[in-house]
């Protein structure tokens, strides 16, 4: 029952200081979402994130069951545990969503991303790039006298590491698919 004690003409009081100042830990989770492959479904899923200011680190989607027109969307997202829980239940209640799996908490999983990297160079740098590619098990899928296109799959961390090494050797362009993931075991 305390008084607000706001003086006439004062400007310092705001009614909008509602945020909790103790921001808890941010986690990264990989979600697999099985949806009907109907028009607008991706916009619906993405809108759920963008409309609430939640993050999408990466997102991949393709029809995985042609007979029943189901697509699998793999989303890597970050947020507080409460936000992650909220995202999952928001996804679950969407009409075209059939299944939501949080691969980060549902036991071990494999996560892979495909990347294409274009590296241009001559002489030593070119040879060094090829040598490193071999170590990282990247394939050459296109080559000219001045360039290679490497293809590699791996975890996002491995791709980051390879890209970092290629940068001084003439990396000029990179395309990444984002993560596809499955739980381990049957």
């Amino acid at each position, binding site marked *: *029952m*305390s*008084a*607000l*004690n*706001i*003086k*006439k*003409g*004062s*400007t310092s*009081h*705001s*009614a*909008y*200081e*509602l945020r*909790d100042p103790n921001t808890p830990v941010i986690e990264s989770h990989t979600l697999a979402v099985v949806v009907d492959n109907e*028009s*607008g479904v991706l*916009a*619906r899923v993405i*809108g759920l994130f963008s*409309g609430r200011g939640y993050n999408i680190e990466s997102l991949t989607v393709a029809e995985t069951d042609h007979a029943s027109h189901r697509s699998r969307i793999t989303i890597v997202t970050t947020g507080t545990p*409460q936000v992650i*829980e*909220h995202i999952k*239940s*928001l996804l*679950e*209640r*969407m*009409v*075209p969503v*059939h299944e939501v799996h949080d691969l980060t908490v549902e036991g071990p999983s494999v996560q892979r991303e495909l990347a294409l990297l274009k590296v241009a160079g001559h002489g030593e740098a070119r040879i060094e790039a090829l040598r490193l590619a071999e170590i990282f098990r990247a394939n050459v899928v296109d080559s000219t006298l001045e360039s290679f296109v490497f293809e590699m799959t791996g975890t996002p961390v491995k791709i980051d590491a390879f890209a970092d090494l290629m940068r001084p050797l003439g990396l000029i362009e990179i395309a990444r698919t984002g993560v596809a993931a499955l739980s381990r075991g049957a």
Partner: protein
Amino acid sequence: MARQMTGAEMVVQALKDQGVEVVFGYPGGAVLPIYDAIFQQNDIRHILVRHEQGAIHMAEGYARSTGKVGVALVTSGPGATNAVTGLTDALLDSIPLVVLSGQVPTFMIGTDGFQEADTVGITRPCTKHNWLVKDTAKLSEVMHQAFHVAKSGRPGPVLVDIPKDVQFATADYTEMPAARTAHYQPRTTGDTAQIARMVEMMETAERPLFYTGGGVINSGPRASQLLREFVAETGFPITSTLMGLGSYPASGQNWLGMLGMHGLYEANLSMHGCDLMLNIGARFDDRITGRIPDFSPKSKKVHVDIDPSSINKVIRTDVGIIGDVAEVLAEALRQWRARGSKVNKEGLAKWWAQINEWRAVKCLTYKNSTTVIKPQYALERLEALTKGMDRYITTEVGQHQMWAAQFLGFEDPNRWMTSGGLGTMGYGLPASIGVQIAHPKSLVINVAGEASWLMNMQEMGTAMQFRTPVKQFILNNERLGMVRQWQELLHGERYSQSWSESLPDFVKLAEAFGCKGIQCTDPKDLDDAIMQMLRYDGPVIFDCRVEKHENCFPMIPSGKPHNEMLLGDADTQGVIGAKGAVLV
């Protein structure tokens, strides 16, 4: 043999099969085939509105007062964009609606055709689900699915966007039972083990409290019935959100009144002080919680909700039960009775003693006047003079809305229609028409503020045309009162743009519409004027001139905890002590 028909005929057939009796709508180029099909039948009544926002709010009023799905029909482009506010309103208040919109023909979509708008794109975030139907063969199934989605689980608005060529083309009609709805079946029965935990907690709690919301109303009359039994048998106190008023009767012994930003002192202090909070179909809205870290710090919290995404969204709960309120209450009541109907009698007695002290504060006390009509007094008189009548109330948004919630008593569910989640000024008048269409013989009153009322006043034309004798009870303070109150309390009394200038003469306005206008300025005349309004067989615009600078109390300023409530004007000035403020 499947029945062959045009898309437009399918729309009408599906509405009939779904038991729809009334459609609120407004025609235009992209829905002409559907209007043609409506013209050629007599089962479905069409209510021609004056603005599409009005159609959606009428459908909401219809839905909320009947428990049925409300239906609206609008044209493409501006028709659909005018529906957006209503759709958002229905989404936030969980009102089941099916909205049908016309669209440019499929071959023109994406060309910026005349009256083309990306309606499914625009309405995606403000519907539960929406469909753009590009093939007549799929239209009837989508229509049935639309009704299924709107009313299943947590209810909400859906939209079906129908291109004009799809309305003209012919295909087989999918009968209602053949429509595939199996995959969208939200869970309705609560987990029995979790319910058992709730029941155990109820047996030992010293300071328990039922905190109920719109979910009880949405669950249907049985939920309210079970809630009443549970409250009566446990003896627990009960409060409700704005959305849940009427699920427990205002005359009930254990009723603490509404809680929240403008809720009652006893309700909010009980929320703050309880040791067991039983949230039944409410969603910890920010109007309820105030400052989150200080929200009911000492309580264990049980949350019953049909929408899993509501649980743990803002407030961490100890027991989350996903399910339909009626089903969960039935099971909880069964378990609790089977275990011997136990409560902590000693704790409860002390708790009630404490609550009765809070009640004695009489937080709704206001300073009456013999010369000016106080808005609270106007509502007290309205309440007294309509008590026991078959009455439905809608409201606009502002101070008058909060006073209506505080001073009118609701004995039954589905009798109180107000825009809670979105706070949409302009909701009340069309909503009152929707209610009256559903209940032609009942008394329907819209408690309005003059500013809100003007936002959709064109719908008086609809009220006249369809002979809905709605009573527009306008508490006219010539102010955007709620805005003015915040400016007084939080912005140093700088009243920026919160006047209602150049108001119409409401009595003449009523005459212009062909209905009755009444103005009342003196408290001594008020009873007679209200009786005149009640006796008049037709729509009435009642211009009730009230005190211009009255503030609505109690008030928990945004971002403050429940126990930092302002009780009266004196509180805000810090002149008189809190105890004194109570008496003002």
